[in-house]
């Protein structure tokens, strides 16, 4: 039998504390990215902002959306979807970055 049919009846009980810590982390990252934007780093502004946003996004997906505790199939799904999107972006820029 494949993993896809594995049953996942028992919801994973995550302690409240984890959510509160995650929230604190997300808030501090938000404040950090705002602070960095005031530092006026010119060329680095956008990459830094995007990196912080991606980090926040990962945290939300892993804990708030419990991907960390999900069936392995959903991991693959997520990789496929995000991978497809990233390739769309890269290939669009195969045109625009040379124009």
């Amino acid at each position: 039998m494949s993993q896809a049919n594995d049953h996942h009846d028992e919801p994973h009980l995550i302690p409240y504390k984890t959510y509160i810590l995650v929230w604190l982390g997300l808030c501090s990252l938000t404040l950090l990215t705002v602070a960095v934007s005031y530092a006026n780093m010119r060329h680095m502004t956008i990459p830094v902002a995007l990196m912080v946003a991606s980090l926040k996004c990962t945290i939300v997906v892993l804990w708030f959306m419990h991907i960390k505790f999900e069936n392995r199939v959903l991991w693959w799904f997520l990789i496929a979807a995000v991978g497809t999107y990233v390739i769309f972006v890269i290939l669009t820029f195969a045109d625009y970055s040379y124009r």
Partner: protein
Amino acid sequence: MSDSASITTGAEKPAAHDDHHGHYGVPGYDPAAWKMGMWLFLFTELLLFGAMFIVFAVYLHKYIWQFAAGSVQLDIPIGTFNTLVLLTSSMTMALAIAVLQRGKKELAIKLLDFTLGCAALFCVVKSFEWGGKFEHGIYPGSLHLAAMTLGEQIFFGLYFTMTGLHALHVIVGAGLILWCRARIKSGAVHAERITFMDNIGLYWHLVDLVWIFLFPLFYLVG
């Protein structure tokens, strides 16, 4: 089902999916299927906003300085405040699920109410922000905007389109949370049957995720 047909060794083996219905393989309550379906739906949302982010990226690449000039016209403290509001609502949504998993129905409803409050606050702040821009004559098709550089016109066009579409998702999400609240109240959603709430939570976190990217790209590129 006629008895003559059950020449089978499989009938004794409990199938994973038919714990609810008597028939084999009739889709009943299958939390994993619902969650999988929800994630697939979230991917469509991801690609929908993703396409808009591609548009944004292309014009950011083309008009990098004009986008910076547009960005400084947006109010960073308000944007930051709204980001924190949404993050908080995401946490209370997650907490509401965790609380209901432990059977605390009343507390779960309170947390959902708080989440709804955050959603409302976000929309109110957003509408004031838009209103402020409108007062300064910055709205799609305005003469004031037409007098700006092409890059700034695109920047504000995208600003209104993307934050508008996001606000629409906030409103839809709030509606879903209201529905979920009613179903918890009526007892249709409870600790053993929580997938519905889980899925609405996932949707709400997605709304948060989109904003996590919208905020720095619009407010902080200046």
